[in-house]
């Protein structure tokens, strides 16, 4: 991507919000917009890294009886469907779910469903060693997160066990749209760049093309969660049709795609 001189755009959606059919329809729409990677969030009852928008989306999915194995089934049939080509999929999933499901079973099924990597936000580097070996065996990347509060010696250790890309959290806080990205972010990215050759993707708070402009040349990609997920609330709004909501998500993704080129 950097050879094309543009940044990667990675939208985040919640699986099963409001149901898995909609998840499939939105995945196809995002794939048609040419996004570079899609992060699929597994709804979890007790998230601590997420702000209200994503938590509400998890609640909608869980109220509708989201089940992990059903998501895997749906994705499996989608990847054997010749009419759509999906970009790489990365799962964002709490370790609470992985552990209970059974780590090996989860990893094998995730891999078979077409995931190429996982982000496990509540599994910090210190606890990830054993698990990262298991993810490798299942042919999955384990993306590690680095926060602005992570000291340099910790960062060094974290990037060593990371693969895929490094998820750089823009601010100390939870997910959610913010007006401006913090000024220190640039410095943080520059120092990270010294520590790893892995691509750097920035997430938390990004919603506008202007945000992307400030990251250009410093990051390799960006993740947008809440700004997309908040549009999912409209699926339960009877004034809009499903198609209208999906196409407005598509329009937003297209706008952000063009921002990747500057």
């Amino acid at each position, binding site marked *: 991507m950097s050879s094309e001189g543009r940044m990667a755009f990675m939208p985040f959606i919640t699986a099963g919000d409001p149901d898995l059919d909609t998840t499939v329809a939105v995945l196809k729409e995002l794939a048609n917009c040419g996004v570079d990677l899609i992060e699929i969030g597994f709804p*979890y*009852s*007790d*998230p*601590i*890294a*997420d*702000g*209200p928008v994503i*938590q509400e989306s998890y*609640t909608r999915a*869980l109220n509708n009886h989201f*089940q*992990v194995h059903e998501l895997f089934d749906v994705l499996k049939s989608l990847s054997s469907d010749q009419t759509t080509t999906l970009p790489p999929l990365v799962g964002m999933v*709490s*370790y*609470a*779910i*992985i*552990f*209970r*499901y059974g780590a090996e079973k989860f990893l094998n099924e995730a891999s078979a469903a077409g995931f190429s990597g996982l982000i496990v*936000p*509540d*599994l*910090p*580097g*210190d*606890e990830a060693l054993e698990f990262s070996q298991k993810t490798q065996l299942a042919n999955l990347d384990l993306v*590690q*997160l*680095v*926060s602005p*509060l*992570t*000291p340099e010696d*910790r960062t060094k250790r*974290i990037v060593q066990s990371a693969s895929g890309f490094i998820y750089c*959290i823009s*601010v*100390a*806080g*939870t997910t959610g749209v913010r007006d401006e990205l913090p000024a220190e972010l640039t410095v943080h990215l520059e120092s990270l760049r010294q520590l790893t050759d892995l691509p750097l993707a920035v997430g938390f708070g990004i919603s506008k093309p202007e945000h992307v402009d400030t990251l250009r040349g410093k990051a390799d990609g960006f993740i947008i969660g809440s700004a997309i997920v908040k549009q999912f609330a409209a699926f339960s709004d009877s004034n809009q049709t499903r198609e209208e909501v999906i196409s407005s998500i598509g329009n937003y993704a297209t706008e952000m795609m063009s921002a990747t080129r500057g």
Partner: protein
Amino acid sequence: MTTILSDVPDASGRFGEFGRRFVPETLMHALEELTQEYEKAKQDESFQSELNDLLKHYVGRPNPLYFAERLTKHCGGGKIYFKREDLNHTGAHKINNTIGQALLTVRMGKKRVIAETGAGQHGVASAVACARFGLECIVYMGEEDIRRQKLNVFNMKMMGAEVRAVTSGSKTLRDAVNDAMRDWMSSVESTHYIIGSVIGPHPFPMMVRDFQSVIGKETRAQCLEQTGKLPDQVIACVGGGSNSAGMFYPFIDDESVKLIGVEAGGRGPEPGEHASTLSYGAKGVLHGSFGYVLQDSDGQTQDVHSISAGLDYPGVGPEHSYWKDSGRVNYTAITDNEALEGFQTMAKQEGIIPAIESSHAIAHAMKVAREAHSNETIVVCLSGRGDKDVNEVARLLGQEI
């Protein structure tokens, strides 16, 4: 080699396979700093003497170990003693921990404190400790618990704390913990999170246990002095597990002492009807640590029910999970109705109105006492007083106040 059960956790916060830190990277550095700061404070004589001084003159320790003669007679059998945490300032054991953590907050140079609360006792104890040290205090509390515990909400506000209503999920304790953790994610540099039980990521389960161990240490000494021997059985209620951990820990290596934790049996054993994590839960991750959790087969936390807001929690501290698996502590459950009965019997027989949480331990002690020989001593942790619960109890008994 025999393992010494008291020698946990290790440096990474492991109680056997339980505990550790399952939190976002953003919190990791603060947890490391807190661990170091706490270790230093523990070795620091001036910290310890200030803490002891406050426990004595502000909290009112040591509180009595009381022989409940009438209740003993009523049950017939073993002798029932109560460790009177209800006589502490603020009326519950929670203050032992908040005073300790508030001192640590001051030591770390932080000025803002957040806390979560179910029954409101930890919220009140945090508000008190913060008022005492001039710290800003924000308490997260589920909307349902705000309804159940109006008196405590009023008290917190009187002492200058801000009470933030939590409207997500089940609107109870576990949602309050979620929201407090989220606040901490964005404020961790200026704020200390005073967790109210032996839950959460390392070092909280260890630190809270240590601060609460004053209960068991005093009980041990008082028992030896008053009865000439160690107790035969020690009983305490288990929500997150702090009053029981504080009570049990100093007895852990005394093999002759039987330890029993009493969870909230609610309306019965079906999912959603109780809060008996150790009786019905499975191993998993919740709120930053690994232990038993009430969850479904996908790892989603289950809704819980208890008559008592303070026991209404789908997880439990990692050290209790460790004690359960090692067989050192037995865990059992008492239903809502049994607890209500324990509450009323205690009031009539002893003239003490216990917290509805503690009433679970009392109800179980009454069962145990009936089966025990008259020279056996049964010590119950009376974790708190029941003023906060009288409105709810009256409502359940169909009476007006």
